[in-house]
């Protein structure tokens, strides 16, 4: 088990990067927690802008224009929905070098309820065009995505969960997270390929991959349209049927993007359906209520390919 949840890994990695990059600015919106490592190491470049997400994106745009690399972190719902117009203009249209780090993606907020869930962010951000979208899984991948974002001049939206801790899937030391990652060897006789996005989805798909020898597992860290185009050939080679597993609504999710990019493939979606969560509980509890998880996915695989035993 990794020692850090993704959003803690983000803070730590950004603080390390700031040592060699004086242009990195850390912006928080009253959700970064006390004793933020960046604030402790670089107080002059750390700004808790308070509960003002829309203004924060505008301020980040001005900082970017002045040559800085602002990383702005808040919860996904506040970044992608409340501040949506600022993100559209500053990151999408103007292409400013802003990195949004959005914790509480999906329903990782669990019992905090619908105001603190975000099952729409990928669709919204994807619609704005030109924004690199990353959904890292586990500490190592999160660290690498933060490194890649800092090294890039592109606007980024990085979706994280809450406090779960995961080991990332093994990736070559020099490999970019923009490379599609297959778990294990690609099985030539697979009936379908699971395509996982985000932490919970990747964990579930990894479990099924280990149990079923007739499925492949492709993990996508980057899901912006430009990155998805790069994955086309590899995904087509992995299986004729793709089952995209993503903690998101079906509308505007990665399955719908891949279906448009791969019209010759059969693309299915395991997503969070159409219901609004009304109960509390853990992240897993809320996912279960929405019909997302290991059991539901196993049933869906069976429906697509026959009985589970066929795999």
């Amino acid at each position, binding site marked *: 088990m990794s020692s850090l949840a993704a959003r803690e890994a983000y803070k730590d990695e950004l603080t390390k990067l700031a040592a060699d990059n004086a242009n990195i*600015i850390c912006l928080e919106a009253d959700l970064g927690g006390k004793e933020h490592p960046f604030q402790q190491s670089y107080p*002059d*470049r750390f*700004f808790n*802008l*308070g509960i*003002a997400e*829309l*203004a*924060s*994106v*505008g*301020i*980040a*745009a*001005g*900082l*970017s*224009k*002045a*040559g*800085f690399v602002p990383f702005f972190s808040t919860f996904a719902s506040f970044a992608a929905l409340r501040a949506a*117009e*600022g993100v559209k*203009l*500053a990151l999408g*249209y*103007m292409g400013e070098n802003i990195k949004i780090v959005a914790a509480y993606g999906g329903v990782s907020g669990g019992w905090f309820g619908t105001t603190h869930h975000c099952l729409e962010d990928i669709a919204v951000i994807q619609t704005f065009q030109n924004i690199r979208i990353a959904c890292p899984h586990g500490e190592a991948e999160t660290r690498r995505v933060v490194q890649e974002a800092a090294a890039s001049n592109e606007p980024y939206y990085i979706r994280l969960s809450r406090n779960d801790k995961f080991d990332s899937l093994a990736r070559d030391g020099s490999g970019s997270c923009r490379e599609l990652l297959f778990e294990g060897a690609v099985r030539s006789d697979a009936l379908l390929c699971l395509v996982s996005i985000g932490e919970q989805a990747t964990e579930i798909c990894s479990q099924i991959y280990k149990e079923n020898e007739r499925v492949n597992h492709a993990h996508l860290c980057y899901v912006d349209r430009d990155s998805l185009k790069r994955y086309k050939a590899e995904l087509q080679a992995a299986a004729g049927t793709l089952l995209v597993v993503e903690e998101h609504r079906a509308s505007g999710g990665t399955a719908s993007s891949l279906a448009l990019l791969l019209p010759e493939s059969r693309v299915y979606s395991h997503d969070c359906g159409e219901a609004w969560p009304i109960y509390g509980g853990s992240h897993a509890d809320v996912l279960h209520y929405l019909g997302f998880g290991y059991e539901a996915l196993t049933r869906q695989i069976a429906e697509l390919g026959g009985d589970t035993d066929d795999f």
Partner: protein
Amino acid sequence: MDTLVQSPSHSAELEELLAKAQAARSSIIDMAARETGCHIGGSLSVIDLLIGAYAKYHHDADTAIVLSKGHSAASLYAALYQYGILSDDPAASYGGADSLFTGHPNPKLPGIPFATGSLGHGVAYAAGWALGQKLRRTSGVGIAIGGDGELQEGLCWETAQLVQAKDITNFIYVVDCNGGQNDGLLADISPLPNLRERFEAFGFRVKEIDGHDLGQIIAALEPDGEKPLAILAHTVKGKGVAAIEGNPHAHYAKISEKIALKWKRGLQ
């Protein structure tokens, strides 16, 4: 009016600026005569503020001037043209199918740092620029030129809150107080009483000026050093064109070439 800034005596430089403002007004009228028309009322109220701001800062690479009330794009284009920042005459193609002179400021053009028009965003952008200059320890300033109607947007006050909280004292917020908005008078729609006190409560130094007096404008556009600065510039919608001066319904207009000629002849 509680005018805290006195106009300097006339000089050759001031005469030159008055000529630029006059030429810019003529250009705005020409844009109103284009097939699309333009936001003429607010463009004529803000043009002196733009001429003054560029006169003072257009050679300063560390200062950003952002027209946040982006619907007055015609005035921004006219001002940038007067200062040679734009080489093409905006009145020749404004609103056209192949023209970059769109109805709200087009950041593909030189001198336009951000896409404004959806109100409030330019204010936050300028504050961010100012913060960047402060971090770089330059003398640069972030100047947002907004409208009084724009102050109905929460984003303006969200930004004002942050500016004082983060001590961004090289930020200047110029408010074109023309008293009008799209559907009529602010006073009838959503009034802004005690505006000076509001900005003071947000930690700003406040100056009130005649927004058509270039001497006052230039004198006022000096960062305070201790506090962020709000300049409440009292202006007249449609200023310079007697037929529409003070008329809140002159927010947007398309006029004939004949009317345009008449209005240009009557410019004062």
